[in-house]
């Protein structure tokens, strides 16, 4: 054999091997299987230790209530709880658990499991203690003085009462948060959160596998009491690269793709044209906003803050950066949240008014100098929006610069209360205004930790006590009055917009309903397959 023929034979062999490989590529489709992807791996399966990774808690566990989308509205519906009664003072709740519910290991669900689930959050004392802390004796459990939650009384296996330290009309909505997942007291082990076998819940799925940085798998829980879903198995792959996800979806290797991290040009040119009939959208209930630090020598002046509100063209940001896939927000309570005020007059874009406000307050061009901080973990679109905002402000006479912070440094500086201003996003955990209002304006510690340093202590006290107003209409009126004061009078918060969260269904998915707040995580039972 000559040298030339040897080379040709080698090349042919390589080509044949690759072609044979091709015969086996992409053959992992099976009936009832849903394949989707996330950009980064979950850090834990334990809901007590995360404020981000809700996919497993939402699908493996149940809560007493759930917030679900019905006729286009987010409503709190009973889940493990069948009945409840609230005392007239709004402090005591009597609950009845659904009969015959079993965990995936066959253990029966009892009221003691619910009590343990509350106490566990306090004993672990990690991120998610706010809700059980509202129960009488919550602080004592967290301070390790006792392990029993005084305000939680178990009557029998299916009946219990919860007594709150202060009334909270949003309590049922809070109970529907993934944080309040009910775990099995009897089977709890140290491996909970990391070992799939330890994840025992009453929900429709069981975790069978979690390969760090690669994928996790859930399968249908045969002991689940509800209707059998069409998705029997779901594989969530960790695909860090957005372009790889895009190719995998187009190649039929993913059945559902979250477009959150896709470039807007790809969304326009590929998804909105080739797959227009398979697009699914839901608002990210929450908002992108600008927080202004009132300890800053310039930003403490209300005229300056109002000028900032008037200098930003939010509609252009929505059109240019989001291709219209965002809605304008005018207040603090986001669109889609109970208590949202459609009639609230936000800031109107008017650069001339902004200039006049600054001139009337005695400021010269370029005199007001401050930094706009951006967390590096935010999406590139939000970072671009921050740059646009900075340029808009500088056009009317401000001297601003955008500073990108590493996530850890950002949190540190912001918590110290010294950040001049920042562009940030907030996503709602539960459908009640308290989730955003109290977090940002509910205490002097909160206004400092968010670098707002809002000085009106009377308003802070009113925000803190608003959740205790039992009458829904009165509570709504109070929140809206507070919003009016903070936004329209004090300009202490500059609301911008809420982006739309987009997904695309593959041909095997007949329908998909996103979680009510537009989370990346979703109820797998809300996916219907064609199989």
């Amino acid at each position: 054999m000559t040298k030339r023929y040897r080379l040709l034979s080698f090349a042919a062999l390589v080509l044949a091997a690759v072609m044979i490989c091709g015969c086996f590529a992409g053959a992992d489709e099976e009936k009832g299987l849903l394949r989707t992807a996330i950009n980064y791996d979950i850090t834990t399966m334990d809901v007590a230790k995360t404020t981000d990774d809700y996919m497993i808690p939402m699908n493996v566990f149940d809560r007493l209530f759930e917030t679900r989308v019905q006729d286009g509205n987010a409503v709190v519906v009973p889940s493990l709880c069948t009945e409840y009664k609230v005392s007239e003072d709004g402090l005591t709740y009597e609950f009845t658990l659904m009969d015959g519910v079993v965990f995936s290991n066959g253990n029966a669900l009892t009221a003691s499991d619910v009590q343990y689930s509350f106490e566990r959050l306090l004993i672990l004392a990690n991120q998610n203690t706010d809700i059980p802390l509202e129960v009488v004796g919550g602080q004592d459990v967290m301070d390790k003085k006792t392990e029993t939650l005084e305000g939680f009384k178990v009557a029998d296996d299916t009946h219990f009462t919860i007594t709150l330290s202060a009334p909270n009309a949003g309590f049922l909505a809070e109970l529907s948060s993934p944080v309040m997942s009910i775990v099995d007291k009897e089977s709890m082990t140290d491996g909970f959160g990391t070992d799939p076998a330890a994840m025992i819940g009453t929900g429709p799925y069981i975790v069978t596998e979690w390969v760090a940085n690669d994928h996790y798998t859930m399968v249908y829980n045969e002991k689940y009491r509800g209707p059998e879903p069409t998705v029997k198995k779901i594989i969530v792959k960790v695909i860090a690269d957005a372009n790889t996800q895009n190719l995998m979806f187009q190649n039929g290797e993913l059945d559902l793709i979250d477009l959150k991290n896709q470039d807007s040009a790809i969304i326009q040119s590929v998804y909105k044209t080739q797959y227009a009939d398979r697009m699914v959208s839901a608002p990210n209930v929450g908002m992108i906003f600008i927080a202004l630090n009132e300890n800053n020598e310039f930003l403490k002046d209300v005229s300056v803050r109002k000028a900032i509100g008037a200098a930003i063209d939010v509609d252009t940001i929505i059109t240019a950066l989001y291709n219209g896939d965002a809605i304008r927000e005018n207040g603090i309570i986001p669109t889609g949240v109970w208590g949202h005020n459609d009639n609230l007059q936000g800031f109107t874009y008017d650069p001339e008014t902004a200039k006049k406000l600054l001139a009337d307050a005695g400021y010269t061009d370029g005199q007001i100098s401050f930094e706009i901080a951006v967390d590096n973990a935010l999406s590139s679109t939000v970072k671009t929006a921050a740059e646009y905002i900075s340029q808009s402000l500088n056009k009317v006479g401000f001297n601003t610069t955008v500073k990108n912070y590493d996530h850890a440094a950002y949190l540190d500086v912001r918590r110290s209360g010294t950040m001049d201003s920042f562009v940030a996003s907030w996503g709602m955990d539960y459908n009640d205004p308290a989730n955003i209002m109290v977090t940002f304006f509910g205490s002097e510690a909160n206004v400092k930790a968010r670098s707002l340093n809002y000085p009106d202590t009377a308003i802070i006290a009113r925000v803190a006590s608003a959740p205790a107003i039992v009458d829904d209409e009165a509570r709504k009126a109070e929140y809206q009055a507070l919003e009016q004061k903070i936004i329209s009078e004090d300009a202490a918060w500059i609301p911008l917009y809420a982006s739309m969260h987009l997904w695309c269904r593959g041909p095997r998915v007949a329908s998909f309903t996103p979680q009510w707040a537009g989370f990346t995580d979703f109820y797998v039972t809300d996916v219907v397959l064609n199989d």
Partner: protein
Amino acid sequence: MKRLLQAVLVLLLVSLALFVMLRIVPGNPVAVLMGEHANEATIERLTAELGLDQPIHVQFFRYLGGAIRGDFGTSYSLGKPVSQLMGAAFVNTLLLALAAALFAWIVGGLCGLLAAIRKNSIPDRLFMGFSLLGISMPVFMVAMILQYVFGYWLHWLPISGVSDWRSFILPAIALGWNSAGSIARLVRSTLADTLEDDYIDTARAKGLSETAVIWRHALRNTMLPTVTMMALQLSGLLSGAVITETVFSINGIGRLAVQAINGRDIPLLQGTVLFATALVIFGNLIADLLYKVLDPRTRREVKE
């Protein structure tokens, strides 16, 4: 022995520098771990539990003591021992690096060889053109092109993930592409120079066939720089597959490092960086040893 001691010293210095750097950069890793909702009391409690409130020298010696015993701590973000996480990831990284090195050595070596033999011919220009492309094209671009052509367009190979040996083909080519280019150029230039040496003419004059001249005489002399480069490249491939692992979603050391950086996961970051350092040192040691095996003169110099 001396080289080994030097290697340990370098490892110690790197771990000290890394330890200090990670602690002087602003930002509390516990705050990142706890997320937006954590209050100050919880952050302080966890900071103390993790020993991050201790003086830096106490933390360092505690870490060093653990590292000597093979305990690199527990990952803050993944809640698992760092050594366990790295062990699982290293298998994938090792397979990927070996496959990439094999690709680079075979393709790069062959291209260089053919180009040198047919110096200034069309194949020479073609191969050198390709090698230039290999050196100048960034890894992520090669990866995207391969994914598009072989994964999406031809459906021959998986676009991402690790399911079986086929999953390593595209990442190995993407990762080895650059090295193949360098090796091709090095082999071509050294072999072409060697082929013009007097002793090659002597070998030819003695009536040896061209194949024997090249394989027995010329190639042996080009091996020295080539093997050095190959050994260094292997350690580079093992420690520098961050982009390839990310684009192809391979759970390897590089991806762990990225995750550790994003989550300010100090134990995991220290583990992955130390591991990469150890690999580079090990690669250099291997190169030195091979040098001595291949070139008797270096052995003699040491003896003298």
